[in-house]
């Protein structure tokens, strides 16, 4: 190899010889991964890139072919392409040389474009303009590689996607060209890849979700890719792309759910390896096994997207044969990808109140879910914990058993996570858990969380965490005995926290939530005193009563009303005190206000 490389780099050797060297090296690279590794160790890439500067086209093509083979190998780090900025621009320039340079360069780009950084680099070097016209090349291979290039360039990249919609090639807009490539008599690979391009463009907002090229072309094409007639790889890719396309749009979810019985079709994804293949054909079994995980996770993902918003679709999914069992099994699979997808699917389905009460309960979904939550990687935890949030809703029959299996401790630990989403979900779940809960649960939560942690959360930089924490407090501080009990133990700290937030720079929702907490406190029998004795707080309530925002006014009013409630002992004194503060004047003013809610009192 080193001799070949030496000859290749020798300017003095004839181009024929150098070309042959590149060809031989390319053949070596076609071999095992180890071959590629050792070629990489010999610094073959810089040598070949150097070769691209040659004036001889045949030599350039040979170098490119070899580079292509090396770059499409999984052992080659993509970054090697980006070490020298001039390389990309030189490759762009070579795109015009011949159909072979076009094919190889596009192939290199599509394999080496991983993530937004690479996308941006290629985009900034004019990849879109340089490659667009290759989509109408006479060579199928060039067209295909150019298409692949666009599918990776546009993937989750709004900038590229927005540019693509307006590109015109041969008098046709790029989306129209993609739609042509979706036609059913085109090779499957081409249909699938152009569907991916259109999907990316749609998700980026470059094409509307109700555009006919999405609704009547891309979506049906992707559904077709999920059918039994397609290869396993194509079915996986088709389902994943479709899941991505419809993820956030209810209308597309509805259309997909009725197209070609997709929901039933997806159930077949779980039938690999089939019992037949196990007996008859070892090769087939191997093939099936290899794809079985991929198929399952793709199906879960697509089910998750389908059921994200529409209750009827969720019902249809759950009614599919053995669906809940499959999810439950999926939760305990060894493959992280499958587990994650299964949790996502479960999460999507858990948004249904009816299902929470029925099939979720019948299948004791909470058990495997709690198991998943132990020692799982963060990405799974995020989805699993938000599923748990739903399962802990007050009406969910799973709430009890989940509590019994140590959920409080788990959730409390989540609130200490570095990961923001986990903190939100943890505290959210706790909030749900505390809603109309028994005294014991509430104390358990408070104990598990510890006041320090609670304060920590109240000073969290994220509004969501703060809101949920306040929500938790509010849920904890409901029904009179609970309020008095908690305030007797943690009164001081809570009052401090409330003061802090009311004084701090927070948005209106946060303040409103805080005032509601105060209102709850004011509802307590003994807890009232904590407010009445705190002039600072009373002044704040008074301030918010004349605040410009009606919601805040209303919340503050609740506090007052709770404080002066007539039927309670000592109400007279409190009324007197408040009157002294001039609250009555404000009330008079408010009673003349136009807002009926405010006039209430």
């Amino acid at each position, binding site marked *: 190899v080193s001799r070949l490389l030496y000859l290749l780099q020798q300017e003095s050797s004839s181009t024929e010889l150098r070309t042959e060297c590149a060809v031989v090296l390319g053949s070596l690279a076609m071999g095992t991964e180890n071959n590629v590794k050792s070629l990489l160790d010999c610094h073959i890439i810089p040598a070949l890139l150097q070769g691209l500067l040659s004036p001889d086209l045949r030599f350039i093509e040979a170098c490119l072919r070899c580079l292509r083979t090396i770059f499409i190998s999984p052992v080659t780090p993509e970054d090697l392409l980006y070490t020298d900025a001039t390389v990309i621009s030189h490759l762009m320039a070579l795109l015009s040389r011949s159909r072979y340079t076009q094919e190889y360069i596009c192939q290199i780009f599509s394999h080496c474009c991983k993530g937004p950084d690479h996308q941006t680099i290629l985009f900034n070097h004019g990849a879109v303009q340089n490659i667009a016209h290759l989509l109408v090349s006479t060579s199928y291979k060039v067209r295909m590689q150019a298409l692949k290039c666009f599918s990776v360039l546009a993937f989750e990249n709004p900038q590229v996607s927005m540019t693509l919609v307006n590109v015109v090639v041969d008098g046709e807009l790029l989306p129209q060209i993609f739609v042509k490539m979706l036609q059913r008599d085109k090779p499957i690979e081409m249909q699938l890849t152009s569907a991916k391009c259109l999907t990316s463009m749609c998700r980026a907002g470059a094409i509307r979700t109700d555009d006919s090229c999405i609704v009547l072309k891309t979506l049906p094409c992707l559904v077709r890719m999920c059918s039994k007639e397609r290869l396993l790889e194509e079915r996986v890719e088709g389902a994943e792309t479709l899941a991505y396309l419809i993820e956030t749009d209810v209308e597309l979810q509805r*259309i997909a759910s009725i197209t070609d019985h997709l929901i039933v079709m997806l159930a077949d994804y779980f039938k690999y390896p089939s019992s037949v293949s196990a007996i008859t054909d070892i090769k087939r079994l191997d093939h099936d096994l290899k794809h079985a995980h991929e198929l399952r996770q793709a199906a879960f993902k697509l089910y998750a997207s389908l059921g994200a918003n529409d209750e009827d679709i969720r019902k249809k999914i759950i009614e599919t044969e053995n669906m809940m069992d499959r999810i439950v099994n999926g939760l305990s699979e060894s493959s992280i990808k499958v587990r994650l997808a299964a949790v996502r699917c479960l999460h999507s389905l858990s948004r249904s109140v009816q299902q929470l009460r029925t099939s979720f309960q019948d299948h004791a979904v909470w058990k495997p879910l709690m198991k998943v939550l132990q020692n799982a990687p963060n990405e799974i935890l995020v989805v699993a914990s938000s599923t748990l949030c739903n399962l802990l809703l007050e009406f969910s029959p799973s709430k009890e058993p989940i509590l019994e299996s140590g959920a409080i401790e788990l959730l409390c630990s989540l609130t200490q996570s570095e990961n923001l989403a986990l903190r939100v979900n943890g505290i959210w779940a706790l909030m749900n858990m505390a809603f109309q809960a028994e005294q014991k649960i509430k104390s358990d939560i408070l104990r598990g969380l510890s006041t320090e942690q609670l304060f920590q959360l109240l000073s969290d930089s994220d509004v969501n965490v703060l809101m949920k924490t306040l929500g938790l407090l509010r849920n904890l501080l409901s029904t009179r005995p609970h309020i008095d009990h908690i305030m007797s133990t943690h009164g001081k700290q809570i009052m401090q926290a409330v003061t802090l937030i009311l004084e701090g720079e927070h948005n209106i929702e946060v303040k409103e939530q805080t005032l509601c907490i105060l209102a709850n406190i004011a509802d307590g029998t003994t807890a009232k005193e904590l407010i009445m004795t705190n002039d600072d707080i009373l002044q704040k309530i008074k301030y918010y009563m004349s605040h410009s925002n009606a919601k805040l006014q209303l919340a503050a009013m609740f506090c007052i009303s709770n404080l002066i409630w007539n039927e309670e002992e000592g109400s007279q004194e409190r009324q007197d005190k408040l009157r002294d503060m001039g609250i009555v004047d404000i009330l008079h003013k408010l009673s003349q206000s136009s807002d009926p809610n405010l006039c209430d009192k």
Partner: protein
Amino acid sequence: GWDKHSYGYHGDDGHSFCSSGTGQPYGPTFTTGDVIGCCVNLINNTCFYTKNGHSLEKLRINVNSFLFFFPQSNLYPTVGLQTPGEIVDANFGQQPFVFDIEDYMREWRAKIQSTIKRFPIGDRLGEWQAMLQNMVSSYLVHHGYCSTAAAFARVTDTTIQEEQTSIKNRQRIQKLVLAGRVGEAIEATHQLYPGLLEHNPNLLFMLKCRQFVEMVNGTDSEVRCFSARSPRSQDSYPGSPSLSPRHGSNNSHVHSTGADSPTCSNGVMSTKSKQSCSKYPALSSSSSSSSSSSPSSVNYSESNSTDSTKSQQHSSTSNQETSDSEMEMEAEHYPNGVLENSSTRIMNGTYKHEEILQTDESSMEDNCPQRQLCGGNHAATERMIQFGRELQTLSEQLCREYGKNTMHKKMLQDAFSLLAYSDPWNCPVGQQLDPIQREPVCAALNSAILESQNLPKQPPLMLALGQASECLRLMARVGLGSCSFARVDDYLH
């Protein structure tokens, strides 16, 4: 969908009904404002419904089984309504469908075509190749492309069953017919295949009718000899069709070359091919008859002056034509003549060269619209009328011997009708004058000759083609849908 052999999709519950009162959960419900479509696929016997352009699941139907047993039974679109005052718009394609049916059809067309393309022949590859070669070779032989056939046989290492002489004779006769010189063709047939036309009075009548038409046209030798023009120019009449039959062609693309330019290179080619031909001496044996009749140029130029020697000379003329207006391969296969008598050959070449100039002029004339009856010659017209009388007599005679024949009557009537118009070329029956009409006559004659030689009257290729077309027709009749995506025409270019 409740009745036997009926299928339905109900809007109230979204169920599908397949010849049964109990439905299966199928699709969404539908109501006023929805567009519901139904697509029956006769290839795989499925049907699916669409709602607002989205296809729902495909269902199996058994259209075929009962179409097969009861070809008269068919599927009919039906819509059932429940609400009074309901209005339904039916679209059978007069407006574009919401569902992209074109795309669906494209998929199936591609599927069927790839099935045909990838038809498994297993390890019978050799057999197939031999068969295909045989088909091509027999086709060439049938239509008298004898040199091409010989070259093909040489390359593919196969043998030709029919004798070269026989092929050449047929070729000659066919050429005469296609050049519109039917009289000579009849004469040649009498000479080469005595008894053939006598046993085929229908064929003879057809030929004679054609001859009459060609007389009107001014192309037949009996009238041409009166013409002021050089007969040679008539030979290369630009409208004369080529030998091989056209499939569904019209006149528009006939003879743009007018057979002029290839002639020029022919003389040169022949000398060149001398060397290459000598490599295959075995093949040179059979062309004796044609080389023997090869005329000298002197002889030829006088040939049209007298009627008596007419047929003799014209057969020789045709022979020359063979070597000049046919493809250059032709030249290779006169090695006999060339080797023995190369001086004549070269003279031929130069002689022709002079001719070309003439041909060019005359073909220009031919293209101009002032065509005249029988070439505008009075004597020729009289000859034609006389011939017409003979034809009438023949018809009456045939009628007496074999009974009435409406076909004959029609032919005769059509042919005579030409005289009723001042410009026969632009009259309702003027189509007869189109050179393309010579083809069926030519093919019939060719087939008859072959039959008389105990050879197939149709080449296997044409038989296969016919079988394929017939097979497709049969498929269509019994409702096998794939036939609609496998048109024979798609494979003929």
